[in-house]
């Protein structure tokens, strides 16, 4: 690449592209393209697979020739090409399984690459606290943490969804590419060091999610959810973009760290600063669902196919909060006096309204949707603490919430398969008798969501409270406790229905073949809830070390 740069006339600059830094995104996106190609090709997918191999070999050759890319990358490209050909030849008669397997392989590879990057960062290697790719992306603690969580959530989602989607006859070939594209957007969002990159990543992840929400297109609830998500999502994107435009107008840059410094300069027009921050805040509040920008959440969570809801709750929240953290806590620390009061009030309202509205819900997915709103409020407290402890607490909370919500929605996925309809609280009566293991695990997830000691939910909430008290935000900690008490009511109502109601609901009239993949995924989540609840230090440490932003 450097030899190439010398021939260029002055003024034209090819940015040095650190391929290794963005390799997780490239892996996810490439896999998405590949799965889409194999699905589109239909019966000719073996031929397409050979073509894909040829293309990958071509890219590998191109990467090798100008002396730019490292030999490992060339080897990885060739390996990926051969692997996809082998898998395609093996599974070419079962296209959906092929898609699922390729997706899981890509997500596992993403985790592997992120682990390698983490290792390199620990040894002071290429991943550091600097922005890369012409200051567009930053591979720092927050980005790496999000990559782990998103890819892990993706794997569990694929396992959960397979049988469910098959049963509902919505197992379309586009599902896996969309999942991978969403994951690309999420990891990109968490590593965006530039406001334009933030916007681009938000759009990548949202556009794919809109379609995934409406996957059950004959179902009115799914249609309604997708439509509302699309309209409100576009609306919120406009707010975000307007905020970015005003910040650019005030500072002349879209780079987050530079813009943050320029914004806190007293010479910058105050009107633009306030308006820009306020509009960006509205945009982010929409994405993480803070009250009063939460209106879409219950409808979308209820309408989307349950595995999609699980993925949305677990992964989207992490990615959106990662960007929220990077722009506000990381970029505008000196301006905390402007936005901290606003976000604190939003967080307080969110906790109370989310919990209070969840109490009156009967449909379980809707109830968990409102509970997701309340949890967004809890996670936002770590944001307004504006400290490394606070950022670490938020990251750990998001990881904990990802595990708990994947587990809870996973149980709902399994129950919905048995019942072939949406689950209300009354349908769970006597579940303890008909399916004891499901009942126990569901109770575990609900207790963890409520924050009972011994589960990861408690540890996560404790970290948030500690961060709030450290930052002198005792009143927010008090609101959190009040909200948790309200929330405990509706979680325990479900547990009472499962264990103590004598009169059993007519559940599982027609037994369906058990889905071992979904059971595995739920069990993994259950183990995670207990393991992190009993032995949290390792991961808490990881989350606190991840609380670094690239400058």
């Amino acid at each position, binding site marked *: 690449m450097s030899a190439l740069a010398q021939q*260029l*006339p002055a003024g034209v600059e090819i940015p040095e592209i650190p391929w290794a830094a963005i390799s997780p995104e490239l892996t996810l996106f490439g896999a998405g393209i590949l799965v889409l190609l194999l699905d589109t090709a*239909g019966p000719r997918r073996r031929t397409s697979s050979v073509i894909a191999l040829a293309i990958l070999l071509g890219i590998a050759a191109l990467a090798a020739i100008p002396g730019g890319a490292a030999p490992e990358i060339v080897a990885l490209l060739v390996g990926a090409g051969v692997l996809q050909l082998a898998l395609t030849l093996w599974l070419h008669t079962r296209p959906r399984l092929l898609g699922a397997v390729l997706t899981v392989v890509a997500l596992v590879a993403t985790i592997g690459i992120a682990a390698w990057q983490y290792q390199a960062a620990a040894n002071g290697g290429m991943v550091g606290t600097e922005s890369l790719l012409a200051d567009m992306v930053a591979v720092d603690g927050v980005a790496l943490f999000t990559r782990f969580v998103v890819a892990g959530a993706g794997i569990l989602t694929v396992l959960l969804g397979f049988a469910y989607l098959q049963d509902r006859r919505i197992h379309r070939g586009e599902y896996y590419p969309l999942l991978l594209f969403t994951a690309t957007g999420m990891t990109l969002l968490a590593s965006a060091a530039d406001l334009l990159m933030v916007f681009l990543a938000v759009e990548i992840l949202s556009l794919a999610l809109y379609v995934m929400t409406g996957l059950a297109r004959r179902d009115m609830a799914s249609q309604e959810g997708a439509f509302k998500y699309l309209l409100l999502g576009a609306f919120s994107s406009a707010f975000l973009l307007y905020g970015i435009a005003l910040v650019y107008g005030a500072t002349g840059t879209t780079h987050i760290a530079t813009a943050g410094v320029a914004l806190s300069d007293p010479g910058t027009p105050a009107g633009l600063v306030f308006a820009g921050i306020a509009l960006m805040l509205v945009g982010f509040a929409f994405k993480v669902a803070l009250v009063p920008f939460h209106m879409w959440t219950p409808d979308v969570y209820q309408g989307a196919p349950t595995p999609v809801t699980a993925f949305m709750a677990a992964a989207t929240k992490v990615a959106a909060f990662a960007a929220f953290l990077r722009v506000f806590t990381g970029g505008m620390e000196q301006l905390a006096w402007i936005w901290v009061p606003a976000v604190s009030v939003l967080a307080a309202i969110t906790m109370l309204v989310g919990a209070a509205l969840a109490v009156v819900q009967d449909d379980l997915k809707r109830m968990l949707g409102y509970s997701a709103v309340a949890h967004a409020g809890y996670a936002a407290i770590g944001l307004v603490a504006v400290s490394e402890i606070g950022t670490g607490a938020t990251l750990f909370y998001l990881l904990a919430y990802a595990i708990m919500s994947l587990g809870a929605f996973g149980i709902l996925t399994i129950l919905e398969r048995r019942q072939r309809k949406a689950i209300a609280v009354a349908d769970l009566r006597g579940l303890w008798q008909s399916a004891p293991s499901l009942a126990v695990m569901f109770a575990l997830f609900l207790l963890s969501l409520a924050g009972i000691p011994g589960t990861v939910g408690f540890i996560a909430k404790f970290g948030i409270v500690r961060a709030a008290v450290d930052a002198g935000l005792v009143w927010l900690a008090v609101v959190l406790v009040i909200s948790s008490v309200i929330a405990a009511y509706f979680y325990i109502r479900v547990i009472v229905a499962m264990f103590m109601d004598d009169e059993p609901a007519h559940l599982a009239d027609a037994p369906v073949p058990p889905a071992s993949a979904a059971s595995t995924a739920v069990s993994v989540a259950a183990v995670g809830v207990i393991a992190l609840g009993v032995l949290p230090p390792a991961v808490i440490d990881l989350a606190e070390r991840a609380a670094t932003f690239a400058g």
Partner: protein
Amino acid sequence: MLAEYLPLLLLFAIAVGFVGVSLIVAARLGPWKPGPVKAMAYESGIITSPETEIAGSRFPVKFYLVAMLFIIFDVEAVFLYPWAVVLRDLGWFAVAAMAIFILLLFESYYYVLRKGGLEWD
């Protein structure tokens, strides 16, 4: 800083003022004699059928699909122009980048084709 926007504001005021004044003057001074010939479509315009005159009437969704596909591929093809201008300066790097871009575009085209998005009936 805001003073730099003054010419823009003036231009805006003139634009609004011109339209407003023209409308008011035309309404005050112009004779108003409608007739069937005057109501007809101008020159080669298509005479509207009663169906399309009613707002919200039906027409095939196929038009919408084709229009959307056209816009997507059309807008992406626009990237080729700036690329072609700087191709000599950027060399093989640009060729590789555009090859990947075209490949992605081609795959989406293939997807549309296979899903029947280009079939009229």
